[in-house]
């Protein structure tokens, strides 16, 4: 079977150190890659432009949720049939993508979500593990989805699935928002085991546990606001 048009969306903020190798690996696997430069202060945009299929640059920093939405809009405009979100800090593996894509097609799902609990996570600190467990409990309780890992940056959507995502949370609360949208859409979703490699770099770039409070605030404000 021929492969459908797969677009990988890499939101990047000050990732000049890793973006080239991450995107080059994706390109080696024959994926279209759109890097969304979220108003970086470093050379992310120029580095990405040498390897990516396309680079879309926010004029100001808006947050990862906003960058994902911009990337999704761009990929949809380019006729993407399957959209994959992939962190730019090198914690995901390109070889996990075919499994997500295959799961979407073979099981006729619209969302395939990477799970490091079904798969593996290397060098994950204990605090991060506790934090993710709490976040998973919270999301399962609020959305009713049956998931083992709710805050994994590696996901795949069909075109129909991507259109169903509203993504109005600009900052980190988008991970919960995506799941809420999946629950509201009623479309089929499934989890696929993936490997997440924690490096010193990705841990420094990633969320801090204290961001959890801001995420809860964002989600609460979203409820009040229209």
């Amino acid at each position, binding site marked *: 079977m021929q492969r459908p*048009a797969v677009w990988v969306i890499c939101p990047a903020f000050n990732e000049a150190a890793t973006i080239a190798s991450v995107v080059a690996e994706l390109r080696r696997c024959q994926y279209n890659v759109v890097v969304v430069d979220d108003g970086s202060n470093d050379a992310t945009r120029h580095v990405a*432009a040498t390897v990516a*299929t396309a680079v879309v640059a*926010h004029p100001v920093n808006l947050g990862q949720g906003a960058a994902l939405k911009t990337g999704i809009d761009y990929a949809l405009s380019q006729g993407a049939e399957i959209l994959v979100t992939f962190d730019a800090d090198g914690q995901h593996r390109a070889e996990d993508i075919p499994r997500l894509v295959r799961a979407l097609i073979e099981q006729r799902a619209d969302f395939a979500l990477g799970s490091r609990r079904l798969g593996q996570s290397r060098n994950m600190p204990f605090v991060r593990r506790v934090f993710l467990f709490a976040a998973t409990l919270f999301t399962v309780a609020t959305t009713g989805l049956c998931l083992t890992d709710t805050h994994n940056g590696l996901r795949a959507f069909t075109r129909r699935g991507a259109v169903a995502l509203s993504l109005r949370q600009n900052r980190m609360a988008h991970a919960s928002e995506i799941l809420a949208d999946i629950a509201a859409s009623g479309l089929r979703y499934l989890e696929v085991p993936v490997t997440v490699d924690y490096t010193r770099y990705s841990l420094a770039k990633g969320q801090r546990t204290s961001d959890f409070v801001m995420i809860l605030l964002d989600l609460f404000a979203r409820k009040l*606001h229209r």
Partner: protein
Amino acid sequence: MIAQAILSLLLCSVLIYAWAEYRRSPVVALMSLVASLVGLYFIWIPSHTTRVAEFIGIGRGADLVMYLWICISLIVLLNLHLKLRSQHEVITALARAIALANADSATEGAPLRSTKHETAKPATPLARDASYKE
């Protein structure tokens, strides 16, 4: 008497603001209207604050006014926060439109790029797959 005059002047300007704001957001206007009217009432008949305070179980009238003030401030803060959020959504939409309009897909040495010229070529490995389409 001096304090009463100054406070009344301030609250009257709030009344005028409420009247001007009514068309834009009636809820905010009505809330400020009620707040300033209650304020005027308490300024001119301060003994009533004590009576109301005692009735609902707060010691002094001044305390009652302070608690009310804290509540009103919090509501105003929340309202401002929501307004900021909606403004930020507008900025996001604007920034996204700019980003998409200036999308840079002229990557050199990228055989799989899908610019307008190349989408017509079905031979690339990323071309649509008819069998995938349901």
